[in-house]
């Protein structure tokens, strides 16, 4: 019964996405269950995007932006962090669980960190189980 989990990663073009790219070039192994969505900046992510990802069947969502102080657009990553916090509250109130969404900061050369992020989200889902929504949508 190996139902594959689905993890959505909203990745900033400059850091999150670049680090994933580098991880690939370095043949680093991470879960194939992660679906990466490339954004011009983590600041582009909206509460609505994250909620929709869950409605579409995600078990967990992460946002990977640049290191704080290093955003290409000054503070897009700070905005993203606030929105992730807000989404956590909504998910907790609905009963999906705020821990299913997380904000990470990563630099473009930190391929290992990208792998860590995916591992972290995978282990969270392993621990708390698949999204309660799947009962309905599966």
């Amino acid at each position, binding site marked *: 019964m190996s139902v594959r989990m689905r993890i959505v990663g909203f990745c900033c073009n400059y850091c999150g996405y670049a680090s994933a790219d580098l991880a690939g070039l370095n043949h680093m192994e991470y879960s194939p269950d992660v679906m990466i969505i490339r954004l011009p900046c983590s600041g582009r992510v909206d509460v609505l995007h994250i909620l929709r990802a*869950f409605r579409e069947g995600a078990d967990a969502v992460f946002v990977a932006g640049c290191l704080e102080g290093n955003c290409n657009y000054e503070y897009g990553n700070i905005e993203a962090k606030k929105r992730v916090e807000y989404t956590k509250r*909504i998910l907790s109130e609905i009963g999906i669980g705020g821990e299913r969404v997380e904000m990470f900061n990563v630099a473009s050369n930190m391929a290992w960190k990208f792998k860590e992020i995916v591992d972290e989200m995978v282990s969270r889902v392993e621990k708390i189980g698949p999204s309660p*929504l799947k009962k309905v949508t599966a």
Partner: protein
Amino acid sequence: MIIAEQKPLKEIIKNLEGHRKILVAGCRSCVAICLAGGEKEVGIIAESLRLYSDMHDHLWEVDEITVERQCEKEWVKEIKKIVEGKDAILSMACGVGAQVMQEIYPDIRVVPGLNTSNMGAPEEQGIWREKCAGCGDCVLHLTGGICPIARCSKSLLNGPCGGSQNGRCEVNPETTPCAWDQIYHSLKRLGKLELMEQIIPPKNWITSHSGGPRRIVKQEAILTAEEKAAKGGLE
């Protein structure tokens, strides 16, 4: 403008239980500016409700719409088509908008999505402060442009109470300045400190809510019977 904040999602959900076809209706006026019930917030709330419905097999149908001003019936009437067939409207407008919505659609249950708080202004992004209590008899000319009715915890009219300390109000010292301390300094700047010496007599609250729900009439704006008849077709 009118300042409101969203009700806790859990409360909204509880109040919607038992309904199925739900319209989340926002307002582009005050509550959009205070980030409580504009198009953006409507989108988030609607999606949250859909998620909740999916989780609990509620089969809720959640639609969303945001009108220009929910407090004006003309705008509210415009959404008639989308309202039809709904069995609940979650009004993301202020208490005024929610009531107008209910008036226009008396057979559909209107559930408030916001807690309407006060008449205020943004202090900085994300922070709003009460400025006016709508007492119907403005005293700002006596108080250096700062309202003691709305901004003093005790609505005092004759200067700060004994709890004014370092310019802060004792009720919420961390967040609230003492209005009378502000008034004092404003009058000082304006060279009108003598106003602080005057005793302001007991206020006539008849113009406030104490006189009953208020109704403002601007005679010259009221349409005559002829004008109403001529405009009738337009409505």
